[in-house]
């Protein structure tokens, strides 16, 4: 971690009409590290994530990936830089089964015929390596639990062999046990050497898995903490502005 960060975003500014969504925001992401991105509603978390994933473009600012300046103006740019994002709505086709969802858009084919065997085999291997347990990979996604769906969406993101995975509120809609499953999966992503961004409102989740916390408030960096060395109160104070 003494080398240059995997992704370094500097002076990111974004304005929506009269609303200043981000002003000179910055964030560094390192391989094998989970960074929690926190902040109140409207603090600019989503905007920063969308800029990193190419869904919107920053007005100003620079992004470096592996030390080289990068332009991210479309989702495909982010993808080819190895940055992948799992948005809260997961973007799964509920009528298709797990295998079909994992390989949607990147189907393995023999000539133009689907190679179901190859897809199912590598889906099994991928999910097993992530510790995701789904009994029937041929069941439609509609039949899965919320935690399983989240896991499928994350596994899907990994198929592109990314370096950075951004997770937008992955546990927001989940119960206690499923949250634990998804957090365990998030840790496994770090253990694979990925840089992980965890956008979250939930302090206990953040304290359970993150290495570092970056706090935004009204579009600006409000604080940065090493999770292990900081108290819950300090992070909350930074989010609410009570530390000023």
């Amino acid at each position, binding site marked *: 971690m003494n080398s240059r960060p995997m992704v370094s975003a500097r002076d990111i500014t974004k304005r929506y009409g009269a609303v200043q969504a981000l002003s000179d925001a910055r964030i560094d992401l390192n391989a094998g590290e989970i960074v929690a991105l926190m902040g109140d509603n409207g603090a600019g978390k989503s905007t920063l994530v969308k800029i990193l994933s190419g869904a919107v473009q920053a007005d100003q600012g620079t992004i470096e990936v592996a030390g080289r300046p990068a332009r991210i103006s479309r*989702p*495909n740019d982010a993808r080819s830089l190895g940055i992948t994002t799992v948005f809260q*709505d*997961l*973007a*799964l*086709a*509920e*009528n*298709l089964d797990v295998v*079909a969802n994992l390989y*949607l*858009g*990147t*189907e393995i*084919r023999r000539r*133009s*015929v*689907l190679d179901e*065997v*190859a897809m*199912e*085999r590598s889906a*099994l291997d991928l999910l097993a390596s992530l510790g995701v347990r789904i009994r*029937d990979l041929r*069941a*439609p*996604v*509609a*039949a899965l639990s919320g935690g399983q769906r989240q896991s499928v969406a994350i596994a899907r993101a990994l198929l592109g062999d990314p370096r950075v995975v951004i997770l937008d509120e992955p546990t927001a809609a989940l119960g206690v046990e499923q949250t634990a499953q998804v957090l365990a999966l998030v840790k496994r992503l770090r253990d694979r050497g990925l840089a992980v961004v965890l956008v979250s409102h939930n302090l206990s989740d953040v304290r359970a898995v993150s290495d570092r916390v970056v706090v935004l408030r009204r579009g600006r960096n409000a604080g940065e903490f090493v999770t292990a060395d900081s108290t819950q109160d300090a992070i909350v104070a930074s989010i609410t502005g009570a530390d000023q």
Partner: protein
Amino acid sequence: MTAWPIRSTLGALGATRERLRHGDMGQAPVAIGLVLIAVVFQSMNAHFLTAENLTNLALQMVSTGTIALGLVLVLLLGEIDLSAGSISGLAAVVTTTLYVRQDWHPLVAVAVAIGVAAAIGALHGLLSALLHMPSFVVTLAGLIGWLGLMLYLLKPDGTLNLPFEHGLAVLSGVWLPAWLSWLLAAGLVVAHLSAALSRRWRRLQAGLEAPSIARVASRAVALAGLLAAAVAVLSADRGVPLPFLIFCALVIGCDLLLRRTVFGRRVYAVGGNAEAARRAGINVTRIRVAVFAVASALAATGGVLAASRLAAVNQSSGGSDILLNAIAAAVIGGTSLFGGRGRAYAALFGILVIQSVANGMLLLNVDSSVRLMVTGAVLAVAVAVDATARRGRPG
């Protein structure tokens, strides 16, 4: 060793139960419905289940069934094509005009008509995808507009006859000799069995769960039984009608396209969650345009088959209740109106239900008013059964 078949049987039962719990009843309700229809009409008129009447039924299904097949594709996207009837009529008139008035070779005339229909379908798809016009409105405009064009082309006579003795009209009078029918049926069973076995072998090679040999064999035997029954009945009369064979080939082709190809997978994805498909890098517009084009081409094929059977086109070609029957057939066969759920076989089984009801009531000399009411009730019951079965479905 002895534990194996039992375990795999239990596994298969479990999987079936799981599927039922998810509301996927397969073709069971349609099969039960068909048995009911057969029993009721046979008890009221002993002519219903004769080889002759069933052969007539097979012929009556072809045109609307082919149109319904295209509608299944469009419904899978969660869209609707109200212009299918008009396009089938227009294609029939274009074919006949080129063939009879302009003296073109019939095959070329048919190919041009189907090409025109595909272009019209692509236009509908483009309008709905690029301008975000609801497909209901685009194709409603098509229903009216293409009907108008058809009537315009039919002027001044309002009707065009096909020569009986050669060309297109002959198509409907071609019956397969029994030996060829049996050969085709056997070929289908062998193709099915070898595909299933090679799939099983590949799954085992990859260390995946695979269906037992007994299961593969029993499915092949079931298919063989079904085909044998159909061929035996049809051959007892005049033989397998060529138009019916064309319809079945189209159904099988569409089924393979939907279930085995990348294109088909993406059709289901767009119908299930278009936004997810778009974010997965799928060109949603291209899929929509292609599906509307194929659906219109199928509607045109249905129209040409109808013209061939009637040996004429007139102002009511593709009109009256053809479109509504085709939509009803797709839905009765188990295609969801909301997209993403259904199979190509829905067109075959759905039209079989609708046409057997119509055929049975014709035999009984029931007035067409009653026929409409009964067809409506069958549609309502079919959808009600499907909706009830899916109520327990999560998500």
